[in-house]
């Protein structure tokens, strides 16, 4: 293998890994804090990308870029909050909440997907990439959009980690996860924390959705694959570990890139699942998941 090929594989792994980290972080945050899986997480990516596309389309070239992104992020934060109010809040606290939320969020996923198909139609759409310049390194062309993707993944993770470690509300998020009763006794309102975490996870999904839409065509099926990838990533990384999810995202990206190069595109999922099964046989708690 030449240096150029190695670099190309690594680059592809880093781009995918960065996107997977963004997709998984919101899901991991919701699981860690509320103890439920949000199956509508992929639909949040989907919806975010369509909202961004619409804002850009309606506003014309002048509104493209920063403003479209800001409008989309605000809209998705509100939507995440509404999703929490309708699919999670009525169920949380019940003995079967974990299972009930699976059903309610799957319903939300189906509804969102169909509403998107109805509202925007089945034809593929394209969200413009961020910038049009590119650089060439070791014979591989890297677009400005790809550079943004590579940088934003780690930056978001650092931001979340710093928030959970240093912000007052970040500490409260962890307190609810670690000991809900004690959290109540220091005056934390868990309902507020849950709503906040859901809104934040929607924003993270929106960022991932927007950046993914600059790479892939946008169709109503857009959210399915990211949801699956996000699940794989947080199971592989360890369910309660944000750092684990981060590492696992790049591991998954690398496995895919290697499998695609050596065996071909269609072998990538096979290799990926084989590796995950082996890892989970050896470490059932995931790469960095510790005992609670």
């Amino acid at each position, binding site marked *: 293998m030449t240096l150029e090929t190695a670099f190309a594989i690594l680059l592809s792994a880093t781009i995918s890994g960065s996107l997977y980290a963004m997709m998984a972080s919101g899901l991991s945050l919701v699981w860690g804090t509320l103890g439920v899986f949000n199956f509508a997480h992929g639909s949040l990516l989907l919806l975010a990308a369509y909202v961004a596309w619409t804002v850009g389309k309606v506003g014309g070239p002048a509104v493209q870029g920063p403003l479209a992104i800001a409008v989309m992020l605000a809209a998705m934060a509100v939507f995440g909050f509404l999703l929490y109010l309708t699919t999670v809040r009525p169920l949380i606290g019940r003995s079967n909440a974990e299972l009930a939320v699976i059903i309610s969020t799957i319903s939300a996923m189906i509804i969102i997907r169909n509403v998107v198909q109805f509202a925007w139609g089945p034809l593929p759409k394209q969200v413009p990439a961020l910038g049009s310049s590119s650089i060439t390194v070791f014979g591989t062309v890297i677009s400005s959009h790809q550079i943004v993707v590579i940088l934003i993944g780690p930056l978001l993770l650092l931001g979340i980690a710093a928030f959970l470690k240093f912000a007052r509300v970040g500490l409260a998020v962890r*307190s609810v996860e670690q*000991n809900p009763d*004690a959290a109540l006794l220091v005056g934390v309102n868990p309902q507020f924390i849950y709503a906040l975490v859901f809104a934040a996870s929607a924003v993270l999904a929106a960022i991932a959705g927007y950046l993914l839409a600059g790479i892939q065509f946008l169709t109503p099926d857009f959210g399915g694959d990211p949801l699956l990838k996000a699940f794989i990533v947080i199971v592989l990384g360890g369910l309660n570990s944000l750092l684990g999810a981060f590492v696992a995202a790049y591991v998954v990206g690398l496995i895919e890139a290697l499998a695609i190069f050596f065996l071909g595109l269609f072998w990538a999922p096979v290799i990926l699942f084989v590796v995950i099964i082996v890892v989970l046989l050896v470490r059932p708690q995931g790469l960095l998941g510790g005992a609670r």
Partner: protein
Amino acid sequence: MLRGASIAVGDGESVGLFGPNGHGKTTLLRSISGLLRPWAGSIRFQDRDITGWSPRQIVEAGLIHVPQANTMFPRMTVLENLTLGAYSPRARPHRRRNLERVFDLFPRLADRRTQTCQTLSGGERQMAALGVGLMGEPTMLMLDEPTLGLAPLMKEVLARAITEIATSGVTLLMVDQDINLLLEVCQREYLLEGGETSLELQEGERIREEQVLEMYFGSAEASGGTMDDA
């Protein structure tokens, strides 16, 4: 299950609550702090009826509950735990002062401030839990078995600290099974038995050892009576 439990704690007073396991001591504290909602009865704090208030409102009023044998937030450092203790708007402005006060009271916590709570010894965890309570700027502090499972020496350290807290003017309601500890720290004691307050000890009154033994193990007659109730 509580029925007919009635206690009163005066401003600045330290009151103990003792009784056998499973007779409602913890339930009583959890009802007062709003974790449980009573079906009937009322709870008053500083001339206000706080029955049915949320835990957050009760914390904001200055009534702080330090739960039982609790590691608080196990995967957070001592300092993070204490910071969270001052989460309420009431306590936030006094965070720095209270932190100094906690570290003065428990120098060991200062040494271990960057360690996570799950790595602390049992005694240090209790210190941390007490510290979290103090960070909440309490008018009244409710402690649930703060010396449970601790060695005599550590018990003594905590008893001294709790006495110091009480002397500083914080009203205290303390649950423990160790009657001698309560007699040492508190001015008055209640006995909670079968969900009822069945005995009140005034200051200076001493409980006979036979009475205590009877309570925990039951005389022949008493245990017969319990069976009938069941």
